């Protein structure tokens, strides 16, 4: 029986590889900082690229990534029209801190909450930070796990590639 499971898994994987073309956002709800429910597929940026970054108030590299992007965000927006959406996976232990932290940090991002990790799981995010780049059709065209200093330059290059297309 174990062999059977493995076979199924292998077939599933193989067929995935052979048919995978575009990748869209799963139709799932997240919460706004005002406690409202919104479906993540409803995010909009008028046909410009969107960056989705999963983060948490207790995650140092996540905050580093979003702080570093924040310093150059205005330039990025002017050059490429990109919008950054930060999705916090803070659970009820630290959820109350998200809005004050975001405000105090002077971030201009759209911020949503995913307190029990439903969106995180659906998007295959096992650790944070995990960053996705979406094109004009809101298809995921690039992703990156983790963050080290300088990764934002790589992200900008990817954004510029989309804009030029």
């Amino acid at each position, binding site marked *: 029986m174990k062999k059977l499971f493995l076979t199924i898994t292998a077939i599933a994987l193989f067929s995935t590889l052979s048919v995978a073309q575009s990748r869209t956002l799963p139709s799932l709800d997240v919460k706004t900082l005002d406690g409202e429910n919104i479906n993540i597929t409803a995010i909009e940026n008028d046909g410009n690229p969107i960056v989705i970054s999963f983060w948490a108030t207790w995650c140092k590299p996540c905050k580093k990534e979003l702080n570093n992007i924040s310093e150059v965000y205005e330039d990025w927006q002017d050059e490429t029209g990109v919008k950054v959406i930060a999705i916090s996976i803070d659970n009820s232990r630290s959820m109350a801190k998200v809005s004050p932290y975001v405000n*105090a940090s002077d971030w201009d991002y759209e911020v949503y909450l995913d307190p029990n990790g439903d969106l995180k799981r659906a998007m295959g995010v096992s650790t944070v930070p995990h960053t996705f780049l979406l094109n004009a059709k809101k298809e995921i065209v690039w992703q990156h796990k983790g963050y*080290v200093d300088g990764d934002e330059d790589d992200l900008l290059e990817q954004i510029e590639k989309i804009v030029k297309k």
Partner: protein
Amino acid sequence: MIKKISLTLTTACLTIICFAQDNSGEFHGDFDLNMQSYQEDELIGAKAADEIILNNAYLNINYTKGDFSAGLRYESYLNALLDFDDEYKGNGIMFRYATYTIDGLEVTAGNYYEQIGSGLIFRSYENKGLGQDNAMDGVRLKYRPLKGVYLKGFIGKSRTYFTYSDGIIRGADAEINVNEALNLESKTRIIVGQGFVSRFQADINPKLLLPQNVAAYSSRLNIINGGWNYSGEYAIKLNDPVGSATAEENNYANGNALMSSLTYSQRGFGIVAEMHRVDHMEFRSERAKEKQYIINYIPTLTKQHTYTLLALHPCATQPEGEFGTQIDVFYKIKKGSLLGGKYGTKISFNFSRINALNGGNSFLNDNSEHTPMFISIKGEELYFRDLNLEIYKKINKKIRVTGVIARQSYNKDVLEKPGNYGIVESTIAIADISYKIKKGHTVRIELQELLTDGGDGSWSMGLVEYTVSPHWFFAVQDMYNWGNHDLEKQLHYVNINCGFLSGSNRFAIGYGKKRAGIFCVGGVCKEVPSSNGFSLTISSSF
């Protein structure tokens, strides 16, 4: 039975594959592998594993097509890493589900994760790093009858390792966004919620009269106005004796918990004030006292630290009874000011304090009866106290510095293991400096010091990390327990790690010694044994 399941699964998978082949859907997923070798090291008490190498691996596959989705997770423990419970053994598809949404109704059959409110009465979730997964197996419905009204109901059994526990869990929740529901144009927004959970387990105890149905319910309120945000939840769990022969465990009293937070923020400034009170509130998937059956979540009211020595003495909620308060302040000193400098300076302040309930938790059985005072702080046994200040400053284009000072009090007898350790008082200082050598190349140095007379004595830690964006990282760290009262245990714990990252794949290898202790990820902690050896981590997503 198993054959039937496997047949059904095969059919389901084949159907999905057929769907996929005419390009009308998407397959995605992720894969994780954690391998570790174990060598014996008598000095740190690390044991060798008979298998030499242990391995945990997971593969998630999700299929979506419009409003339909289905998926599964294959788990492999051959054999489970030493810090996992050895009940995790072998391979299996331990998670599979199908869900669809139509006209506002969402139907899920199979496995699912769910949370009611803050989780005080119910939370099913997974944390692979900590070996925790209490996924539900059953059915769940979510429905929006009107704008701003959210209903959900579920029934199922809760996962414990590779099986499901005895209790049947039923739950329902209603949330109303008052402004949305009544079309109110108001600056003040109000959201109310009411949750209910009940567990059924037959009473087969010949001596005791045990409740077969145990209920828990909670009410919550969220009021938002401008920069202000109040959030509160109150929960009650009805009598839930363990059913053992020991009188202390057979507590028939009801439990309750209250959590409350008030926040205010504006550009450059934020403040959070929180309190909670917990009294006999652990809720389990069956009449038992073991941790693996817990199905609710009482958030710990302290800051979740990530620097190693700040997290050396972590706090964990005492669900049987505690009272706690916490304050956080975030402030950004503006650019161009005297203290702000060219780039501004960020300050985070945090204070938390947790103490025992007056005279212990609520207790009710044939021998004794007790209800603790609602609020009592002075004179009660201290469980944990943490006062910390973090300053972050970008000095110039190349140098960034973070500094932390903290003072912590840790009740080792309560938070770790009963003994006569007393309260471990420690003072901690940390400097974290990163220097950009050239584009993409950064070196980061962490220096940490923890001074204490209690516990295992004082520690020093140093870390050097070199990163080359976007592909490489190298790190060397040493933790040195120079202040241990036992001279033989004044040891170095050296770890070397490096990793390679490309696109959606990440590979990391490490070698070194880990100290035994409490390991916390995502707000949940577990005790891990000391270990010595190689580790390999591969994670990938598609």
